[in-house]
């Protein structure tokens, strides 16, 4: 499945909104079949921060591990955020 991040907003900065996105998306994630890939698409996202990403991407990775793939990560705030999270 593809998760289009822009559907959560194009300025993704605060922890509460990241957490809210994660919780709201649970019903969809619960329907994913066992070996389906999860593609996270950052197309059209203007701003992403580690605070938001830590509430959404960190638990997503924890749950689905290497089934998570990222695409359209060339926005500088997206790539800077991913670089910081990768150091954790």
């Amino acid at each position: 499945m593809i998760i289009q991040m822009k559907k959560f907003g194009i300025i993704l900065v605060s922890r509460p909104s990241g957490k809210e996105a994660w919780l709201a998306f649970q019903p969809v994630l619960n329907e994913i079949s066992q070996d389906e890939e999860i593609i996270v698409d950052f197309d059209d996202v203007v701003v992403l921060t580690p605070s938001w990403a830590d509430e959404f991407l960190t638990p997503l990775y924890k749950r689905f591990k290497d089934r998570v793939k990222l695409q359209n990560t060339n926005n500088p705030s997206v790539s800077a955020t991913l670089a910081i999270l990768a150091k954790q």
Partner: protein
Amino acid sequence: MQNKLISIGRAAQLLGVSIDTLRRWDLAGRLQSTRSTPRGHRYYLQSDIEQYLQDVDTIARRWAEASQAIEPKPDVYCQTRDVFQGRLEQFQSRLSRITPLTTVSLVTAVAGEIGNNSYDHNLGNWPDIPGIFFSYNIRTRKAVLADRGIGILTTLKRVRPELASAQEALKVAFTETISGRFPEARGNGLKFVKSIIIDNPFTLYFQTGNAYLYLKQYDRDVIVQRAKTSIRGCFATIGFEGLL
């Protein structure tokens, strides 16, 4: 002298904006005029114009340092995160008129991270005024964020009781992954801010307590110094003069 009234034309000239802009600002409450009658001509108090012309960071610093707690003016006051998110979106949209999206995204991310940090660490604990002061000046390429919260030392002492000064706490906040909200695994925010500032033509002044740091492009070390005056919460100025 301070309360001399000046015409809208003169005010526009002093501020370097059009009369129409001043009318819009008046309606939006950003810079309010005085009228003799409801339909009369708009006049401005000289003191209001002078204050508007002052650096955004001077006004914010004064607010953050003041012993007496006063709510900031509504156009710069973000009592809750929702208000801050709205203003941040407005900031992003205004920035995108002067600079490419790549830069807009980084400056907005830095401001967003610093501003949200204030709410994350002070929720339920604000000593007097809840929320933050957020203002910017596109003309001078500057954004300022301040809070009257508990400050970084108090926050980090919860997980690092051995921290003895604001200087040590500020250094830790910008160089180590540590969270003042244990047991949550977090604490990347200010490292992220640092990584963006040193890789781009931006500057950052950040103060908490009597400790401050100044970061600019290509800096590798975080040098924390002692400030002349103390701010209980946090005060940050982001400069993007490199985009002029």
